[in-house]
């Protein structure tokens, strides 16, 4: 028995060969973890988890034991062999340091707008379920949430999620007075369980009949502007705040329930007076309501103006956004271009065909014709103009007890139009909007925007409906690796329970929950004080101190302005750190490769992301540094030992040999010298 154990030990923990086999095994394990991501994904492990899991830990424990045993048993503690001792001590120190490091390590990031202070950051790896009610955010950790595969009862594998850390969770509002979710909502015993998970999916909506509902809803199948190969259901339903307005590329849709037919006619009438021009000439003063493309003769003054274009969001020299009309003025003796802005008295005139003129003409500093005064007003009391980046808005009007739908379309640069749709499956004539790519390409190549083609879109009109959500998993070949890694497309199915009541809600992911808008499902618990919303995001943790961003600077190469797409030389976040306990303040500059350390190097704040549009915020990476010093000492020992073993040892051996030879020549006995292999 003892012999067998002896044999076993001799061939394992006391054997160099066993150590070599262990080294090879470690190399193979980390090669698989890093080189074949599919393997670790099969086990639902990200990189950190894979390299912190039991097989590698066992290998490391065996490695350390073998290393220690072999060192003590087989390497004499003599000057020539000191190198090996030092290296092995270094390796053991490094492994212990690394083990401590990965057990205690946290990392994450925090977005700070200029001038603001943050006291928390978002963990990089760990997810949490957030609940927002009455302006307060409660949260609960989701440890053990899978990462790479989809689980749901519809997929037949929901039992994977049936683990304690994902069931019967109670989100909590931390702070002085800790509050649970049911306290926030004023209901008894509200609990959440994760019952479904998708790593890469889209949350879609459709209309379903709902007993008791009198709401009218519309759905249209339109190609996804970002992905023309797939069609998407576009929903419009006036009673649901979220689906009363929607957009498709640069086309805006809105559904309004009108009280009566008269209100609709009133709206249609308002489209005729969108652009109001008050024109004054000596002996002529008149208000004109105009449309793009229209030519208006100014009495018998010999003047006529043609409306060329409407730009709803023109940025003026003083960086203000105003609506602008571009006019072609035909004066009795000349012709020039004029731009008039809302609330701006002075127009901008352009001489046509002059030398060095651009496409609009040659810009003038003062009006070409001082006699002609034009004041511009934009009237859109019914909000029928498209918003933001839209270039046309289709407003659907329905009245109670009428199967008729009136669609008023108001494009930016054309006349408004009205279509009346009859029945449950009418056809809407729609101008296919340009994709953002096409617009960008046109502006890059200087081409005029081609007129978009008209398409006929079948519309489904349903009565007595409500909106329901469903999850559509994105097929593997359509997934973007970066998006997948950031987790932007993760969706949970969460089951909320309170007493006998329960409801399943889809909860999508957003980074930094408190900083970005939520798209998570709405939760209406019977008897609750307030509705609530759920969101999946990264776990929020406390920063070791408060950080304020005083200033942010980005510097590009070649004297260029720092913007998206430019090569950037450096970023600098000027921060003030405040110790919450003592109120002590320190200032620092975080820039690339030059982080700010806090609390004697226990924490590190480094530059992570930035705002390429306006440089109005920074994103700092946050991390603690447990065991870094220990690992550093380990590394130092390894390097020193290496030097010693490679370059000092041969010298020592030769010196010893020489001395031994000299002694031998003198006929003395050699003490303490054993022939050593010269390696």
């Amino acid at each position, binding site marked *: 028995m003892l012999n067998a154990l002896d044999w076993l030990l001799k061939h394992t923990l006391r054997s160099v060969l066993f150590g070599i086999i262990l080294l090879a095994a470690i190399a193979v394990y980390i090669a698989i973890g890093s080189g074949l991501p599919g393997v670790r994904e099969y086990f639902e492990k990200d990189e950190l988890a894979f390299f912190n899991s039991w097989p590698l830990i066992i290998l490391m424990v065996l490695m350390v034991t073998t290393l220690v045993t072999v060192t003590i048993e087989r390497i004499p503690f003599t000057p020539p062999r000191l190198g090996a001792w030092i290296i092995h001590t270094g390796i053991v120190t490094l492994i212990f340091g690394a083990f401590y490091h990965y057990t205690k390590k946290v990392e994450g990031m925090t977005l700070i707008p200029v001038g603001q202070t943050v006291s928390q950051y978002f963990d990089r790896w760990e997810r949490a379920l957030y609940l927002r009610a009455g302006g307060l955010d409660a949260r609960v950790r989701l440890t053990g949430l899978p990462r790479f595969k989809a689980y749901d009862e519809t997929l037949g594998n929901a039992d994977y999620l049936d683990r304690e850390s994902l069931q019967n969770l109670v989100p909590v509002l931390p702070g002085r007075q800790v509050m649970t979710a049911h306290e926030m909502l004023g209901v008894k015993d509200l609990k959440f369980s994760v019952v479904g998970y998708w790593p890469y999916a889209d949350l879609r909506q459709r209309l379903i009949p709902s007993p008791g509902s009198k709401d009218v809803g519309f759905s249209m199948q339109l190609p996804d502007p970002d992905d023309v190969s797939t069609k998407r259901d576009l929903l419009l339903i006036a009673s649901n705040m979220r689906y009363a307005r929607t957009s498709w590329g640069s086309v805006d849709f809105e559904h309004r329930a009108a009280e009566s037919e008269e209100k609709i006619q009133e709206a249609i009438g308002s489209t005729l007076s969108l652009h109001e021009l008050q024109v004054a000439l000596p002996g002529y003063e008149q208000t004109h309501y105009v449309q793009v493309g229209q030519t208006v003769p100014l009495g018998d003054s010999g003047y006529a103006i043609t409306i060329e274009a409407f730009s709803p969001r023109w940025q003026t020299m003083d960086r203000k956004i105003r609506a602008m009309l571009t006019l072609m003025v035909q004066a009795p003796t000349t012709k020039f271009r004029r731009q008039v802005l809302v609330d701006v008295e002075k127009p901008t005139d352009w001489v046509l065909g002059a030398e060095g003129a651009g496409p609009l003409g040659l810009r003038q500093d003062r009006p070409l014709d001082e006699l002609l005064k034009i004041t511009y007003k934009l009237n859109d009391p019914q909000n029928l103009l498209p918003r933001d980046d839209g270039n046309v808005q289709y407003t659907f009007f329905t009245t109670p007890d009428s199967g008729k739908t009136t669609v008023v379309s108001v494009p930016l640069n054309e006349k408004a139009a009205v279509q009346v749709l009859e029945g449950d499956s009418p056809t809407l004539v729609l101008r296919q909007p340009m994709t953002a790519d096409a617009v960008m390409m046109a502006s890059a190549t200087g081409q005029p925007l081609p007129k978009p083609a008209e398409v006929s879109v079948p519309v489904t009109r349903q009565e007595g409906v409500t909106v329901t959500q469903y999850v559509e998993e994105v097929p593997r070949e359509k997934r973007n690796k970066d998006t997948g890694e950031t987790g932007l497309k993760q969706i949970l199915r969460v089951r909320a329970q309170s007493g006998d009541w329960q409801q399943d809600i889809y909860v999508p992911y957003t980074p930094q929950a408190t900083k970005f808008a939520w798209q998570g499902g709405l939760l209406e618990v019977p008897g609750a004080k307030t509705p609530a919303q759920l969101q999946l995001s990264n776990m929020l943790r406390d920063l070791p101190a408060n950080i304020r961003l005083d200033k942010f600077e980005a510097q590009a*190469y070649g004297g260029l302005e720092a913007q998206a797409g430019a*090569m950037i030389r450096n970023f600098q976040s000027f921060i003030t750190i405040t110790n919450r306990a003592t109120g002590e303040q320190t200032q620092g500059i975080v820039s690339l490769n030059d982080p700010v350390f806090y609390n004697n190097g226990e924490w590190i704040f*480094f530059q992570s992301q930035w705002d390429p549009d306006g440089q109005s915020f920074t994103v700092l990476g946050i991390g603690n540094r447990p065991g870094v010093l220990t690992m550093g000492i380990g590394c130092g020992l390894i390097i020193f030992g290496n030097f010693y073993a490679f370059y000092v040892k041969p010298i020592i051996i030769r010196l010893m040999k020489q001395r031994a030879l000299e002694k031998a020549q003198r006929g003395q006995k050699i003490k303490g010298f054993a022939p050593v292999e010269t390696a």
Partner: protein
Amino acid sequence: MRITSLLVLLVVAMFCGTVRAADAFLDQIDVEPLRLMSLQHNQTVKTFDTYSRDTLFHITGKTHLNGVPAAKAVLDIAMEPQKYADANLIYIRNKPFRYDFGNLPIDEAERKRILQEGTISFKFWMQPQTQEAMNRIMATATIKAQAINEINGQASMLSQLLDYPRFGRTLASQAFVPAEGAKHANEKPWEPLPQAAHHLLEHSEGHDEAYVTGVMSMVVGMETISRGWSTKDAAVVNRGLKEIAQHAASINPAAYPSLTKRKFEVRYNSLARLTWPGAAVYFIAAVFFLVYFSSDVKWTYYAGWLFALGGLFVHTAAIGIRWWLVEKSVGNWFESIPIKNQFESVMFAAFFGSIVALVLETGIISRTLKAVGGLEFRKLHGMGIFGTAGAAIGMLSLLALFVTPYVTRSDIIGGGIRQNAGILMTYWLYIHVTLVTASYALIGMTFVLGVWYCIQYFVNRDAGILQTLDAANLTMLQLAFWILGIGIITGALWADVSWGRPWGWDPKETFALITWIVYLIVVHVRFITAGQKRALVTSALSVVGFFVMLFNWIGVNFFLVGLHSYA
């Protein structure tokens, strides 16, 4: 018979090539002044020669267009936009992607041509159905999105050259005009000529006289070129080219690189960044050293040394000139040390390797040890072993840098001089990259010595030679081992301050560690083996370690995604 017909074909092809190149008008154009002109492109100041080479190669995957060298070809494209908008210039590097154009309504012959040649024209790219097809593919297969992005990049570069859609027959979008008042070449953005002229017309006051005269004279010169081109009058074109070159340099001499520098840049380009000249000299050195090792004819040893030093000289020039050229764009000597991308790091690694090998070949270290400490080690120097290894690694690296673009038809990362991501602009880069690439060079030499040992082992079996080779290999292995170790550790220190964690299991980190473990295994295997078997195992593992290193250096960039994407 077959060889004869091949030869005939080859002669015919060469003849056709010369015939196509012999455009009488183009032949008379003297682009030298234009090649020497500077412009700013991608936030970097470079000569037109560099710009045209990079552009033509990026678009077509070729260094010449129908036998016409890059600078002239690019000028011709700009001056004959209609003709070239129809020519099949855009080269699709991603082969599987070529099949996707097969679904388009084009005739069979054209489809086959696209599959074989892999080229499409700008007009073909512009067609709505092509655009739509690309959008569709982009949406359905993100893997191909990268290929499409690359083609779009090539097309937009070409559209700049063609001045699409105006077809202005001028170099209208290249920023030839240095910024007024800039004290350094890359301090402020340069402007394209029409834009600069337009700004002058809009705000004519407050400009330098030299600036106004320079810009206006350049406009006249550009018009002369354009006129000459349309009437096919080479003399007029040449006059215009001289004019713009002369005036561009006078606009703001402080911001315009010196003529010497521009001339060096052009020469550097035409010698393929000194890659093949260096490789050729190293090759001769390696042959002489090898001959000496097997024959003991003394003069071949000296010849080996002569060529090795010659190779090292060319190599030093290649790095030095590049450093000087990069400085022009960065404006700071320290920040422009050329070791920031794959091209430069391969160049540097080989440089370091050659120096170490040649120093070992001199025997200066063992002689010093003997002189100072009276220590006697096995004699490894003066036999041509290290010399061969060093020259071989220099030659292989430079040759790889030269050949890769021709084989893959795409440039090595960092082949052209560009700006680097801000995260790389730190002294940590020099410490970390220098150490790691230096260890790679040493690993390369252990590979050479390992293979050499294996050949000797199976062919010659001369115990003395085998022992010497093993000892030489061990010297290299030890150097490689600890330098790689320090390289990895400094990488961790850098990651600690820039990424907020010393070790994140990034694929590059992981495979560097695996390489190190391979050598760790070598060290320990030597304890449990002996004699020739020990040396054989060492040699075999040196070869294995080399391939692990190679996978880490090159392969990881292609197969695995990580944070080290730039090196």
